[in-house]
């Protein structure tokens, strides 16, 4: 069981967290202006890299805050965590 460093609470057991998929996928400014295909890209398509991946996590059984993390999908190592709204750290090379 991994320790996940919540940017608000510090390291906590992974069971306290809820996964939220790819980070930095903003809700489109004006959905009505999008083609069906563009909208479908937003609704259904996400990256699935082998390596560092910026993801959303929620400390659902703790402070209940959402935050972002860069995780290496090959090792599960969390390379960085940062609060929602903060820019992604320069860790993806």
């Amino acid at each position, binding site marked *: *069981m991994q320790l996940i460093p919540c940017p608000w609470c510090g*390291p906590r057991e992974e069971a306290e967290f809820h996964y939220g998929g790819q980070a930095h996928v903003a*809700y489109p400014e004006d959905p*009505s202006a*999008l083609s069906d295909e563009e909208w479908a890209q937003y609704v259904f398509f996400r990256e699935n890299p082998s390596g560092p991946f910026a993801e959303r996590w929620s400390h659902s059984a703790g402070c209940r*805050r*959402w935050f972002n993390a860069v995780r290496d999908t090959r090792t599960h190592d969390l390379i960085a965590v940062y609060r*929602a709204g903060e820019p992604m750290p320069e860790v993806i090379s």
Partner: protein
Amino acid sequence: MNFRKPTGGAIDRNTVLRFTFNGQLLTGHPGDTLASALLANGVHEVGSSVKLGRPRGIVAAGSEDPTSLVQIETPYSEPMLLATTVELFDGLEARGLAGQGRLSPEPDPARYDAKHEHCDVLVVGAGPAGLVAALTAARSGARVVLVDEQNQAGGALLGVDEYLDDRPSAEWVADIVAELKTTPGVLVLERTTAFGMYQDGFVLALQKRTDHLGFAAPASVARQRVWRIRTKQTVLATGAHERPVVFANNDRPGIMLASSARTFLHRYGVLPGSRAVVFTTNDSAYCAAIDLAESGVDIPLIVDARPEAPARLATECAARGIEVRAGHVVTGTEGSSRVTDVHVAPLGDGHPDTVVCDTLLVSGGWNPVVSLFSQARGKLRYDSSLGAFVPGEELASVRVAGSATGELDLNACARQGRDAGAAAVVAAGFTPGGQVPLPVSDSRCTQRTGLVLWRVPGDEDASFVDLQRDATVTDVLRATGAGLRSLEHIKRYTTIGTAHDQGKTSGMIAAGIVAEALGVELADQRPTTFRPPYTSVSFAALAGRDRGELHDPVRVTAIHRWHVAHGALFENVAQWKRPWYYPRDGEDLHAAVLRECRATRESVGMMDGSTLGKIDVQGRDAGKFLDMLYTNMMSTLKVGRIRYGVMCGVDGMVIDDGTVIRVGEERFLVTTTTGNAAKILDWMEEWLQTEWPHLDVHCTSVTEHWATIPLVGPKSRDVLAAVAPSLDVSNEAFEFMTWHDTRVAGVPARVCRISFSGELAYEINVTAWHGLAVWEALMEAGSPYGITPYGTETMHVLRAEKGYPIIGQETDATVTPQDLGMSWAVSKKKPDFIGKRSFSRAENLRTDRKQLVGLLPVDPNVLLPEGSQIVETDRLPEPPVRMLGHVTSSYPSAALGRTFALALVRSGHERVGETLYVPVEDALVPVTVTESVLYDKEGARRDG
């Protein structure tokens, strides 16, 4: 026949333990395992193999044993235990197994629990390396946990008679354990197996706390405990397992690992037999041979596969009359339930010679126990001199010491322990304390490198690689012959290494045979991945206390006691217990529900709706926020009014529905379905935190704050008037979809005029504290009208008659509001809301989508099973049959005087009036498609 020596071993000869094996009464002593007690009684044949039914004995002395599977029947029936790890207790009843055991149909009466432990240094294994590592760490002041699977510390020392520093090794061990146990911050756990190693220093260990006490185990003490250890640094001193050599008929009882026979001798005072041949590829088996010879076992021959025998050991053997044949191997055995003869021949070629014996001791070298290291994602490296995989890299927080590294010299193992312990405390931020002196052993066995020999050529069908799986050399060669090259694939193809022992003695040999067959170097082969658990762990232990009523929290409402007292049957809805129906005098579900429905529609009924999810939404932007979440407009709702709303995901599919009441300019109370309350609160938080952090909105769950009582039926107004004298209940003063704060039964209440049944209805909300009193007051006020409490089943029927969907019953994740016929609840004015853009996707505009309709079986007495499929024709065509949809809800209806159903049907809205068919068992039941609203289509009953 008695094979117990008169002296020696860590057993209590003054106490006799009685036990039965396969019904036979036998005796042993405290300190015995079931295996050592069986051997002391001359019993080698324990069970039989899973596929071939061949006799199986005891191969090893510990948890690496592949064969001695038993079922114990006392004090609780438990299958698939190893005789070598079951500590003997008085009254033990055990049976040998034919490969598989039988789970008890009775619940396990013992308690199991779990405990969290945090430490700086965890040491796994209390052999020489682990003890020195633990003491080194302890002397630094670090928090240290030492776990060991045996009932006493010592590791490999338990199975030998070595002296350390000129005194019995047990004294050296005892001194260290005593210092550890008196050092503050040090926890020593015996009978505790670290079985899983995970990320960030998380280790699971199973402690067997009272198994060994048998019937004397106190019921108040957890029988087994799962330790959840979080450590900064780990020292793995997990030791090594001796491995055999594969040869023809190597599976007979009486064929045992040499070091295990030595362990049975020194630890339990038990001789493996009367006359033992030894087959080895290395020095260590000589010590077993000499020790056994000195204990009175006739050792006619040591068969050493190496071209030359070790000179000094050979001389010692000669002095004891033991013949040593170098350059020879065992090519086969005879015997049925016990080995009787061994065939010996020169390695390579030559005529076999037959030697009579009742025991064959085998040593093919040592496999470092690298399971936890591998679980911690440490890379392994093949060591060609050992013929084994060893830790192949250093990890930042996991160190390996002792024979787990491949080192076999005791002094060197202890030194590794000391170095690892010191490095671990430094890495954990401590300064090493007083240096632990390293012991000097008097062992006669120098661990000269052996010969790596996986198998002796011979009958491949009878050359067993995995004795538990009955997998032979033939099976391995069939796998490589079929083109398999990866050890992972071959493991699955042959099942080698997948039994209870996880290939502790067989996995390395299988890898070696595969490499030989493929003509590749083992160094280039990737070993199979080690996975938890290292040894078998029962589900009861993993479940711990989380079973029975503690398995999941049970939530009950403030009025629950009343429901119980009045005979309600309950339905589980998420974690809630909800009254399902209230049967009277022998009523079944249908009779009770018909009565409850009729009473409610004709007079007045009430139910406990407290489980409904309730979320308080506050803030300047609350209206704006709800406009984005709901398909309809919430910001225009006036204070004092209520609106029904539907929520969709971004894909446009309905995820929840409920009422929204505007409490104030900046405050709304949102209700959700019972099962979705937490999910919807999470949904709100997700949007607020990740997309719209600029909105001034705060949400909190208030589900449990309120007791909620729908009061339903034409007489509900009269009942409410009786308990709320200050409230004007007239239709003009208290309109549909409005709410009023008032007093009900003397306590503050919020009354909402909403209806989930089509009847005149009020929803009375009071603080949970007053819930029961208000419920009882309503029952009393309603008694002149025959007020009837009803449960969820009646609620479902009443709403279904009105065509109101239940989210999760009428819907799955593929249903839009339009499919439900709820376009009226979808705003045309709002520029955007979650799901809106998806409604215009081509897929969601198709006219042949599944849509919610009513179904009336042509025979009004036929009740369609929920989940039934719907087809177009009165005769089933050849498969595949086109399914039009399925029945989502189906009930008999008192109001309609017949059965009815709701269903999702392809192009359902266009099919109203059509006859469709529902396959029920062997018949096709004709049904008429109707609109989903079946009762009071005009809504005439709403105002009473």
